[in-house]
């Protein structure tokens, strides 16, 4: 039987000990003596969040299919255990073997959101791995980063030996072969990292240097070794129906955020909303085949025993075989008493029909994401959802028995005016009014409940808004106040609930998203001063972060409120995500002119992703 890294006494003292014991159904055990490479795959947040992430499940499954590799999981210990591990000097361990992470060959860390950056340092710290890559030796695991945030890795570059840029399915085998050869032939760690940096999609940050202009913007960014590429192209799966996907995902003992089978039906999005980073990073859209999806849906349900299956994609309604696949799924799931959850569906006659089959209408709510309150603003962000479409969808839904509506918006979008902010309240009111007009009194199930939520817009790299200034905290809060006041002025105010996000953390997220390498010192200092779990409101210490920026002599405004000129070199410009800077520039200018751009299914916009030779770029257009 496995020996646990933590004593029974510790496990009985802390909250949710199941986070740390491993041994879940479908977790992979191997003989540590019979593998060449031990890989610790870390999601730097608490177990319930990390275990819910599909990307890690794909990589975990794939790496363990390699006979010479044993991939295990690592998550951030929660605050209670963090304290005990520091006090008792217990090294961070991987869940499967319960062995210390430090002894592994690789520590892979996925960067899913910027606010986890201090948790990276927590993981390194508890593992006993030096924070800075340049201080590491062969005694330490090779620390490699992946995930969407590595499309601007610079703020955390000094903490990583390597970054894997792009989709994880393609390059690990080559990286491992190189590693094995380097170890066998007695190469130095530095030599290995340099060789790795020549592999497609792999970025070895210590071999790159930045020079800056007096105003703090980048003058040059270049590899110090001529053999390394100046530009790094993202890795991408060409055929999503002929690649790795877990048939037997790990089944957690405790309830995690995604306590269900997650089936990714397609990758990428045709829509091109200008605020959305994923919409650009995962171009071109690639669908999985119906055969693939049918096979995996059944296999995964059988292997996990989950009572729910969820379809995952950026915009499920755009999946060409959706009706056919849903018919199949409804049939299979009925037999097995399995629920179907369908996020990211556009509300129309088809989706309402499907939803009425798979959900309890009385309990479920409709979700619309207009993202902005006025048509002008929606044109700027290229969200092709019109008020007419929203109201038609809502009307159909009200007739079908729904009476709960959730509306998602962003505040602080480029060119946004008070009128756009107030438009959020007006739209919510229109929907409420429509309910009372559509549903006769005797058929109403109480009041219509409309929940409008706003998050604050944060410009992200590789979007047309990467040049845009971000609002200040005060501007954000003023805007939220404007919406709140406008909601209270509406006739149907009693049917509308308005929520807005906290603004402080948005400011930091904005800095980390578009930050450069100088930010690393701030992150390090903030961690040293106790910042950790910044994504969790209750632990976020805005004052400490502000102090650290000041102490490091860096201006927060430089990264947030400053409007970038069109010829500025961005910290992430050395990465080629397929979409060209020229295209993004064009889109930025169209945004300012309030011009809508057709989606990929309607007409090709020449974004650059066609060079991958796959996906929507090569399909017939309607």
């Amino acid at each position, binding site marked *: *039987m496995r020996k646990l890294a933590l004593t*029974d*006494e510790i496990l009985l003292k802390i909250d949710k*000990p199941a986070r740390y014991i491993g041994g879940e159904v479908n977790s992979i055990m191997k003989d540590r003596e019979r593998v060449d490479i031990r890989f610790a795959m870390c999601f730097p947040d608490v177990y319930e969040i990390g275990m819910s992430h599909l990307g890690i499940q794909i990589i975990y499954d794939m790496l363990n299919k390699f006979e010479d590799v044993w991939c295990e999981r690592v998550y951030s210990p929660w605050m209670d255990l963090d304290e005990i591990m520091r006090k008792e000097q217990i090294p961070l361990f991987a869940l499967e073997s319960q062995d210390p992470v430090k002894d592994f060959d690789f520590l892979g860390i996925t960067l899913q959101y910027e606010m986890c950056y201090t948790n990276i340092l927590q993981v390194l710290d508890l593992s006993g791995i030096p924070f800075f890559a340049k201080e590491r030796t062969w005694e330490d695991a090779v620390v490699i980063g992946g995930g969407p945030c590595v499309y601007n890795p610079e703020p955390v570059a000094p903490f990583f030996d390597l970054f894997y840029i792009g989709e994880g399915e393609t390059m690990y085998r080559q990286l491992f072969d190189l590693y094995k050869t380097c170890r066998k032939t007695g190469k130095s760690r530095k030599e290995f990292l340099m060789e790795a940096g020549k592999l497609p999609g792999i970025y070895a940050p210590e071999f790159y240097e930045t020079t800056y202009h007096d105003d703090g913007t980048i003058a040059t960014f270049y590899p110090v070794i001529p053999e390394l590429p100046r530009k790094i192209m993202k890795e991408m799966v060409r055929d999503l129906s002929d690649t790795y996907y877990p048939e037997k995902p790990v089944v957690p*003992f*405790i309830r995690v955020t995604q306590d269900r089978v997650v089936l990714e039906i397609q990758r990428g999005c045709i829509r091109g909303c200008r605020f959305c980073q994923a919409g650009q990073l995962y171009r071109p859209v690639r669908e999985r085949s119906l055969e693939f999806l049918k096979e995996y849906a059944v296999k995964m349900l059988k292997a996990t*025993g*989950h009572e729910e299956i969820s379809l995952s994609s950026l915009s499920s309604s755009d999946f060409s075989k959706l009706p056919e696949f849903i018919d199949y799924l409804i049939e299979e799931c009925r037999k097995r008493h399995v629920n179907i959850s369908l996020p990211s569906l556009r509300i129309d006659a088809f989706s309402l029909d499907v939803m009425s089959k798979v959900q*309890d209408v009385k309990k479920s709510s409709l979700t619309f994401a207009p993202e902005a309150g006025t048509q002008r603003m929606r044109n700027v962000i290229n969200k092709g959802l019109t008020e007419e479409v929203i109201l038609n969808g809502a009307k159909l839904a009200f007739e079908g028995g729904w009476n709960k509506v959730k509306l998602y918006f962003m505040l602080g979008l480029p060119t946004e005016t008070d009128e756009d902010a107030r438009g959020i309240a007006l739209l919510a009111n229109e929907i409420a009014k429509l309910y009372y007009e559509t549903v006769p009194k005797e058929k109403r199930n109480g009041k219509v409940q409309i929940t409008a939520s706003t998050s604050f817009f944060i410009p992200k790299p590789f979007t047309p808004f990467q040049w845009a200034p971000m609002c200040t905290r005060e501007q954000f809060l003023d805007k939220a106040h404007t919406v709140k006041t406008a909601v209270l002025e509406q006739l149907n105010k009693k049917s509308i609930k308005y929520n807005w996000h906290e603004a402080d953390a948005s400011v930091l997220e904005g800095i980390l998203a578009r930050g450069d390498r100088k930010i690393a010192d701030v992150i390090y200092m903030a961690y040293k001063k106790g910042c950790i779990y910044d994504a969790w409101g209750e632990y976020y210490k805005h004052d400490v972060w502000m102090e650290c920026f000041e102490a490091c002599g860096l201006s927060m405004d430089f990264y947030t409120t400053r409007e970038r000129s069109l010829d500025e070199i961005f910290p992430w410009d050395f990465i080629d995500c397929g979409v060209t800077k020229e295209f993004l520039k064009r889109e930025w200018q169209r945004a300012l002119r309030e011009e809508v751009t057709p989606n990929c299914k309607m007409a090709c916009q020449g974004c650059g992703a066609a060079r991958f030779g796959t996906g929507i770029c090569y399909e017939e257009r309607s």
Partner: protein
Amino acid sequence: MKYRIKFSKYGSIIFIGHLDMMRYFQKAIRRAEIPIAYSTGFSPHQIMSFAAPLGVGLYSNGEYLDIELTQEVSTADMKEALNRTMAEGVEILSVKALPKNAENAMASVAAAGYFIQIRKGHEADLVFGEGFDDFMAQSSIPYEKETKKSRKLLDLKEGIYDYEVKEDGIYLLVNASSSGNIKPGMIMEAYYAYLGRKPSEFDFVVTREETYTKNEDGQFISLDEVGKDI
């Protein structure tokens, strides 16, 4: 068709609480493709009930749950199918078919047997079991049970049906019915108090050895003796 499943909990599974064990079995039953019956309605759930919740940190060789199936299945096949999909630390010990009129698992629980040992590193200067006979020879064993709302004075002696001081620990057979459930920790607290001591939080390692019901003659029989193999 009602079936009773007996299982053990050992190793790291002791850190999985009762509610999560229920979820664990729901998924295990799906994986094993057991034809379990579902309730009706929009979110149907499996018809399943556990005998007695086991606290986090306790081992067990005698946990029970009842399930209802839509068709008859061989008990040996079901045991094998479930064991094939168990995580390390849970073993299906028996599967029995219940007679039609059988009381459900929870209602039929009358007693439980526990084996209590001193946790390694907590031995102190005490020979565990010392003075336990004298402790048990008292005419009553008062114990003040504190709940969120109230304090209640109990006599533990009424609920201790049998005991045995063994070389490596103490065996206790105690009331585990819904009306008079006694936790082994309560007895240990009273025992230590009798010795003029106070146990610390993690002093004991407790294993539930068996869960019992009463037969028509009023004798304790293990919960799976009610059913039979088919």
